[in-house]
């Protein structure tokens, strides 16, 4: 009975094959035979390995797999004794058979391209091309597949790596020419944060890319619902068509992965993340995304650290990345994150195997590696029915290795793709190495020894029972042998082939003195031949290899292993307390902190009386002769921002947000903590009249971006006026974007808010409709930019405006008044002193520089008395940095309010603490030392306004994120860790491994005007 079913199944699968619509030149060449590959160890799938088994295939499919199979009569049998068969690998990230496009680089000497050059039926942005289909363009050339097949791949997913929405990929079997086959025309939809070949200015920044991805999806949703009334759009149409496909997002670095996943969460997608191999950096955060990953196994080469001085420029971060990269797969595997392995970035098959071996040496199990190359990728693109295992009915895609895969000695014999064999190393089923007895013409006897393998075989020969051996040249080709040696000054040249079924006897001819004579050799003993069993899948980590730990963040001054998330109750004794409250400065006072909040400020707090239940559950800090203040708040900062502080692609970019691109791994976070900064508003730059939304973060060094953000804070947005927005200093080619004058700036605002008003009206009208009515009518299109502008009109979002000249400040207040909203803060505002009364009347705050001026024409009238004057006129005044260096000396900047204009020290201190807290609507949570407020505190050695004051400890939520003593330890730690890695890299160099030149940190210090 089973036999009948078996044949029925075969017949069914044949049906599909007979249907060919291609005319045949000549006669039909049907191939109905079976091929059996026998006596092998077959890795059917994870958890099922068959010893001494047979794989039976017919045409492109697996007909059967098992031990003791009964083979049909029309079977061609291949003996694979001692060989190992695995499912062929699957690579999900390739550009196979597709011509890559070049990334566009606009030079400054070209006029910007503001609009798309594509036809109007496509989306308005050139980087959005979901309509792109790999199936339409994939056209592999001869040999394109060879590289992949030699690595053991049988199928690849291919798409054009270009643009933000990149369109769909195809699953391709790695056969060329007539055998080229798409297994799936559309397998997945692809995304990235790179705009690629698009020359359009927008988006110019990462946050712009993110906003664009959001807007496209809003547009698609609206389009799908309103197709009847709107113009046909090929791009949006394509997104709809491919909605059900898996979505793969190409990312660079863990932060980028968290961002991609967050976008997915917003729209209800679960992206599969194409990573870059640095997932170990924040493995727990990656785990919580629930995303599957596609990871490369490209490992950085060791740096050439032979020059100790140049090595100073090489950051520890890079050294650690070098050391940890090969451990990445182990981290993923241990964290039970589902991953597929890609060969992306590898140039040769040698690299592929070497790197996998290295990963296995570093603790990745072989099983996990195999799974990541077979079953997982198949599953991720919904192709498990076809590929990924060697079960019956699946495609005959498999690889034959001489031994357990991923061992140094293991050789690839052949990669079979859709039943077609691509042979590499001959499957000589005989280990030639050994000792032979050779005779020529049955007369002369020799002892022959063959050592080595395959083409690298070497021979030695001696007369029988003679100890003097001579070299014999051996050329082995398939089953043929050529042997030559010189003995007694006579050259012997023998050629022959294996002449028995067990491959133990060679025989052939030799020409001696013009006469062809016979020769033969019989193997006496084999070379010892050990093989690892497939089961012995041990993690063979070298013991002497110190692995190095991940730091959080993974760089100098990062936390080792874990983060300080434990609150500690703190009692500061006998400090000079700058309360920023009515009490002013309290000498010899105590401050008690519980659970990250200030519990009490008092004189000689008697703990037993006041907090009897507390027991010893607190740490006392002697603050005698020290000053305790609330943490510094920087209203205007550009640290910790990734890939662009300005979205300068358009004049109005309310849709973009810095909170999408917070970089938790910026060393300047730590540096600013050392200067007492605890909270920063990370602002968009000043390239546009309406810039992007800001991020409010606490400098929780080591945490991920999301955990740095101030919980429940109000939303802010950056506006800008003057020379930057009118592009005065952008060079002679930037003269086409509106506005180019202060006159135009006003109109940009006017237009934007008029549009926002209309947008609001549309929605109000729509929302007022009854259910039935709504169903009949069309909803307005959701527009991120206008939505954010509406929030401003609704006092749901607040404006911080970059400004210098009084005329423009005046203008914006008038404009806001006319639209019935208020400018929350004018930043820079260097001519604020000229309009302090107007600022006061409008209710705007002023966050200014202490003493900057003369860098541009519009700051020619800037004066250092500005802060004092605004303050004296009752304007809420602060000093900000806008500069990573000054950010860590804001206490000194506050002192300049005393120096220039005679503000009292108590009030001057508020310029960098309480006042910015109020500007950020956080005045009730931070900015002063008051019961119930966050314990964001700084302990200073001296009056904090003094140049001689240094930070002892900076606390955020009662946790010491910077501590001078700990810093001293960290410096040592940095040194020892560097030295350890330098030695390790020097050893690699000594061992002859290729190195790469020292590279230094890419410094990204943003200011308002940074265009990038």
């Amino acid at each position, binding site marked *: 009975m089973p036999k009948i079913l078996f044949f029925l199944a075969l017949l069914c699968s044949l049906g599909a094959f007979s249907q060919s619509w291609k005319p045949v030149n000549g006669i039909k060449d049907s191939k109905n035979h079976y091929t059996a590959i026998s006596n092998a160890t077959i890795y059917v799938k994870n958890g099922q390995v068959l010893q001494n088994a047979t794989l039976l295939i017919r045409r492109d499919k697996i007909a059967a797999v098992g031990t003791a199979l009964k083979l049909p009569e029309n079977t061609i049998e291949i003996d694979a004794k001692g060989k190992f068969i695995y499912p062929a690998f699957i690579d999900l990230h390739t550009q196979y058979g597709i011509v890559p496009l070049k990334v566009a680089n606009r030079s400054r000497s070209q006029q910007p391209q503001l609009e798309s050059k594509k036809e109007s039926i496509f989306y308005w942005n050139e980087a959005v091309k979901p309509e792109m289909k790999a199936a339409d363009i994939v056209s592999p050339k001869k040999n394109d597949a060879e590289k992949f097949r030699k690595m053991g791949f049988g199928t690849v997913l291919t798409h054009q790596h270009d643009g933000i929405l990149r369109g769909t990929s195809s699953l391709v079997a790695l056969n060329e020419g007539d055998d080229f086959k798409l297994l799936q025309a559309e397998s997945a939809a692809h995304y990235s944060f790179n705009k690629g070949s698009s020359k359009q200015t927008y988006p110019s920044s990462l946050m712009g890319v993110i906003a664009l991805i959001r807007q496209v999806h809003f547009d698609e949703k609206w389009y799908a619902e309103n197709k009847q009334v709107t113009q046909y759009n090929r791009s949006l149409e394509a997104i709809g068509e491919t909605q059900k496909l898996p979505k793969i997002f190409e990312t660079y670095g863990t932060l980028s992965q968290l961002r991609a996943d967050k976008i997915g969460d917003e729209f209800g997608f679960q992206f599969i993340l194409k990573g870059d191999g640095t997932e170990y950096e924040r493995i727990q955060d990656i785990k919580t995304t629930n995303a599957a990953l596609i990871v490369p196994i490209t490992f950085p080469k060791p740096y050439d650290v032979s020059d100790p001085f140049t090595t100073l420029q090489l950051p520890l971060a890079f050294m650690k990345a070098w050391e940890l990269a090969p451990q990445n797969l182990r981290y993923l595997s241990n964290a039970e994150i589902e991953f597929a392995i890609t060969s992306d970035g590898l140039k040769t098959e040698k690299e592929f195997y070497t790197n996998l071996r290295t990963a296995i040496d570093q603790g990745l199990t072989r099983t996990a590696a195999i799974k990541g190359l077979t079953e997982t990728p198949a599953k991720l693109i919904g192709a498990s029915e076809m590929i990924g295992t060697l079960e019956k009915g699946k495609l005959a895609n498999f690889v034959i290795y001489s031994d357990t895969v991923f061992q140094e000695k293991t050789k690839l014999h052949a990669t079979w793709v859709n039943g077609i064999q691509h042979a590499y190393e001959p499957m000589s089923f005989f280990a030639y190495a050994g000792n032979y007895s050779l005779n020529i013409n049955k007369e002369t006897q020799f002892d022959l020894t063959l050592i080595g393998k395959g083409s690298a075989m070497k021979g030695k020969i001696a007369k029988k029972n003679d100890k003097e051996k001579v070299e014999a040249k051996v050329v082995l080709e398939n089953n043929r042998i050529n042997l030559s040696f010189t003995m007694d000054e006579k050259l012997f040249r023998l050629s022959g082939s294996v002449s028995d079924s067990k491959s133990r006897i060679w025989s052939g001819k030799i020409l001696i003195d013009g006469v062809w004579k016979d020769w033969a050799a019989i193997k006496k003993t084999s070379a010892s031949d050990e093989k690892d069993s497939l089961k012995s899948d041990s993690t063979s980590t070298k013991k002497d290899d110190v692995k190095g730990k991940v730091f959080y963040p993974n760089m100098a001054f990062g936390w080792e292993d874990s983060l300080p998330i434990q609150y500690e109750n703190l009692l500061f004794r006998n400090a000079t307390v700058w309360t920023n409250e009515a009490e002013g400065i309290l000498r010899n006072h105590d401050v008690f902190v519980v659970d990250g909040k200030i519990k009490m400020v008092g004189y000689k707090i008697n703990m037993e009386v006041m907090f009897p239940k507390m027991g010893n559950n607190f740490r006392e800090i002697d603050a005698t002769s020290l000053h305790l203040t609330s943490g510094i708040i920087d209203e205007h900062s550009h640290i910790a921002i990734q890939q662009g502080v300005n979205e300068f692609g358009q004049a109005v970019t309310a849709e973009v947000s810095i909170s999408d691109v917070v970089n938790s791994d910026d060393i300047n976070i730590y*540096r600013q903590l050392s200067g007492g900064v605890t909270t920063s508003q990370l602002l968009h730059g000043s390239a546009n009249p309406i810039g992007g939304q800001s991020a409010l973060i606490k400098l929780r060094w080591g945490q991920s971006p999301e955990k740095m953000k101030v919980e429940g804070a109000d939303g802010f947005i950056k506006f800008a006026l003057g020379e930057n927005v009118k592009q005065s200093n952008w060079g002679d080619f930037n003269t086409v974007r509106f506005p180019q004058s202060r006159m135009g700036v006003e109109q940009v605002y006017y237009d934007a808010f008029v549009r926002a008003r209309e947008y609001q009206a549309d929605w109000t009208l729509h929302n007022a409709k009854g259910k039935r009515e709504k169903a009949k009518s069309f909803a307005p299109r959701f527009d991120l930019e206008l939505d954010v502008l509406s929030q401003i009109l609704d006092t749901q979002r607040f404006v911080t405006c970059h400004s210098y000249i009084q005329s423009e400040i005046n203008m914006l207040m008038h404009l806001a008044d006319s639209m019935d909203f208020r400018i929350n803060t004018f930043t820079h505002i260097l001519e604020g002193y000229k309009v302090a009364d107007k600022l006061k009347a409008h209710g705007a705050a002023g966050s200014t520089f202490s003493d*900057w001026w003369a860098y541009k024409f519009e700051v020619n009238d800037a004066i250092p008395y500005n802060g004092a004057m605004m303050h004296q006129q009752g304007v809420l005044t602060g000093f900000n940095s806008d500069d990573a260096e000054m950010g860590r000396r804001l206490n000194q900047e506050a002192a300049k309010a005393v120096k220039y204009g005679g503000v009292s020290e108590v009030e001057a201190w508020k310029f960098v603490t309480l006042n910015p807290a109020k500007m950020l609507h956080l005045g009730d949570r931070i900015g002063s030392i008051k019961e119930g407020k966050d314990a964001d505190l700084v302990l200073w050695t001296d009056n904090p*306004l003094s140049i001689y004051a240094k930070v002892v400890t900076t606390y955020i939520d009662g946790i010491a994120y910077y501590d001078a003593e700990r810093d001293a330890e960290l410096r040592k730690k940095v040194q020892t860790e560097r030295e350890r890695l330098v030695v390790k890299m020097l050893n690699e160099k000594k061992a002859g491994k290729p190195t790469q030149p020292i590279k230094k940190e890419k410094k990204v210090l943003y200011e308002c005007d940074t265009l990038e």
Partner: protein
Amino acid sequence: MKNFIVIIACFLSMSVGAQTPATPQTKSILLVGAKAHLGNGKVIPNAAIGFRNGKIDMVLSSIDIRMDSTKYDEVINCKGKHIYPGFIAPNSRLGLVEIGAVRATSDQREVGQFKPHVRSLIAFNTESRITSTVRTNGVLMAEVAPVGGVITGTSSIFNLDGWNWEDAVLKEDNGIHINWPRIRTSMDTDKKKDVEWKERYSKSVAEIKEFFTEANAYNKGEYHLEKNIRFEAMKPVFSKKKKVFIHADRVQEITDAVYFFDAYDFELVLVGGYDAWLLADLLKDRSIPVILRRVHELPMNQDDDVDLPYKMPKILTDKGILVSLENSGSMEAMGTRNLPFYAGTAAAYGVDKEAALAMITLNTAKILGIDALVGSIEEGKYATLFISEGDALDMRGNQVSLAFIQGKQIELTNSQKELYQKYSKKYESE
């Protein structure tokens, strides 16, 4: 004291406009009662400092000596205040550039690579609005140097007061400035670029070598068929009348420069010197002083101690190097007024306060070769000094209430104070 108040009141009523240069000292002046920081490491808690005809003729402690104040035409009581020698800003751009972003206001950079003949002297703008905001913080002198190319040009040292550059100059053509070529370090892993950069560096160094060899040969000869003004400008360098300021920061660059100049007998000064602390012996052996790059700066390497720039003055001083502080970099001209605070930070990070003061006074004067004239409050030197209400190295105390350049009492208003007063009136009248 009364006098003093009158003077201050006088200044407050000044009208808007550039500050009028002071007239030469006619009356002799005696400052009594202040804490005098002499700039040479010494402090006189209750000092009597007298000067006439532009030069200091008495530096005493008024506790120790009963003095005859009638010898001076004017006695100013400075009790509770501090006296400092005028601060000196080396390697500055004061008077060469007015508004950073406006090209027309910039005279700091000339075309070409080797320009010893190009002189800052004649471009120095005594009407600069920036200068007057700098001297109100105690910076009374500046070495003004061109930028750009390899030899950027010849610098001169100015008093920050005068009708014109002839009037203001303290030392003409004091030195040439060399930007030692930089070895770029890759930010990518491009091996080819790395090699390319190294080649470019070697080429640039070879060009310097060639220039000096030719200049040397030229200046050994007496007569020239054809004059080479470039090489002519090098003559004072070979005769040690001009110093050679080498601008370099990294180990290899400093080392290469120092060894290169071993072949010549020049008066060398290292400017920048971020890595100088790693090469202290090399510099010390040759008595090369360092004009240290901006103290208020971020560390150059990610892994550096977060306060490395702050404590650099201490490290170098401990290694026996003569250190002076400067302010080149972004917003360099207008930021020169913060020079005193760099010395303050040096003190906060371990340098003795008076030694820190020397880094912007006497050390600088020595390094620039003007210590016989200025740099400290000593008899025989110019009376270029000022009175501050408090510690001038700290923002909390830096309030310059009286300042003299070569005995001339200078105006302490500036365009910024004037705008302050102008707009204060706006609010007062409301």
